[in-house]
């Protein structure tokens, strides 16, 4: 994945200009910087949700605007919002999110729910889950997505120390198996050195 000369304005503020990086496989890119510096905006540009003013994002050498659906299949996105329906149970939400991407059977999904520690809460409607539990459910979606690239915006928010450790472990094994990740976070990712890459953003002008 490559980003070339990205530039984005929000109103009269230039969030970033001439921002470029390259992310090979087996790497996790840690995007850090003060609040309001445009981390989320950058991630949304990388996903293709926002249009940059200038520059282009390439995935395997092709601009992501060319082959949008192909690119979207290759990555999983975790934003500020989890994207779960309050009326559906954790199990139903997971089944829906995953089935948009690939076929899985109940057993695989139950195992994953177990892994993120949600077995007891699996049949509760998402309305009554805590913020941390919803975050864990999002992680389960990401794990089951079979995506090569993970784009995670502040995945650590609302998680307890065990949950944060779990993310670090997940990122390590994801990179070890040839995947890549872009993570915006204020804290260290806990990813092993060979996998780690940094992008420090400065305050907007």
């Amino acid at each position, binding site marked *: 994945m490559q980003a070339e000369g990205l530039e984005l304005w929000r109103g009269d503020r230039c969030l970033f200009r001439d921002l470029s990086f390259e992310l090979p496989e087996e790497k996790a890119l840690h995007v850090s910087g003060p609040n309001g510096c445009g981390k989320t905006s950058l991630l949304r540009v990388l996903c*293709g949700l926002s249009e940059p003013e200038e520059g282009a994002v390439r995935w395997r050498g092709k601009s992501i605007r060319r082959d949008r659906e*192909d690119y*979207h*299949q290759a990555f999983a996105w975790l934003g500020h*919002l989890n*994207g779960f329906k309050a009326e559906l149970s954790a199990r139903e939400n997971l089944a*829906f999110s995953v089935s948009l*991407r690939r076929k899985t059977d109940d057993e695989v999904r139950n195992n994953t729910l177990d892994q993120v520690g949600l077995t007891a809460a699996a049949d509760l409607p998402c309305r009554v889950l805590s913020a941390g539990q919803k975050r864990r459910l999002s992680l389960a979606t990401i794990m089951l997505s079979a995506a090569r690239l993970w784009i995670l915006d502040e995945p650590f928010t609302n998680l307890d120390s065990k949950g944060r450790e779990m993310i670090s472990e997940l990122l390590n094994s994801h990179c070890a198996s040839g995947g890549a990740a872009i993570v915006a976070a204020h804290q260290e990712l806990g990813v092993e050195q060979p996998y780690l890459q940094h992008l420090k953003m400065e305050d907007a002008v």
Partner: protein
Amino acid sequence: MSGPMSGFGTVLARDLRLAFRRPGEMANPLLFFVLITAIFPLGLSPEPELLRTVAPGILWGAALLSSLLALDLLFKNDYEDGSLEQLVLSGHSLPVLVLAKTLAHWVVSGLPLVLAAPLLASALYLPAHAWDTLMLGLLIGTPTLSLLGAVGAALTTGLGTGSALLSLLVLPLATPILIFGARGVDLAVQGLDPVGPMYLLGAILFLAVSLLPLAIATAVRISLD
């Protein structure tokens, strides 16, 4: 992913299931339809002769307004809980997914209007031989209303402007449906052949199904930016 329609069934099933978990919201458009229809005799007069003449216009106007009412929420909930961006990034063709959402919405809010129409028609003394034209017209007209409304809903999602703007955007575009639908019933009441306007409604529906999902998908992408 396999097939151009992949994801259609998944989204349709989810939205229908969601709708059935919120039965109150589901009943609203139908109640609104009944209410508007009931208001006119109160405002005009209970005289059968008069009501019979204005019934096609009232029924179609009420159908138009009540299908707009529920459209406000079509994308708003998904926008607010983040599932809209997940849909956009799911790797499926977005026009297909929004078509599924609109169809689910129509099944919940448009179809009940079609089924309830004869009941209200009889309350307005519309002769029984025009009921089938009324139902047929609504059956092929309300999906177009839902599609047009979905464009407006997608454009206004996330703006926080309320439903007044949505109506301003959609109502002028929906006038042909109203005209053809209501005049078709009029013709049937007079014992004339209503097949012309029905064909036109069908042609517009065909056009809407093939073109509007693209517009809705574009509008969804814009509102997420």
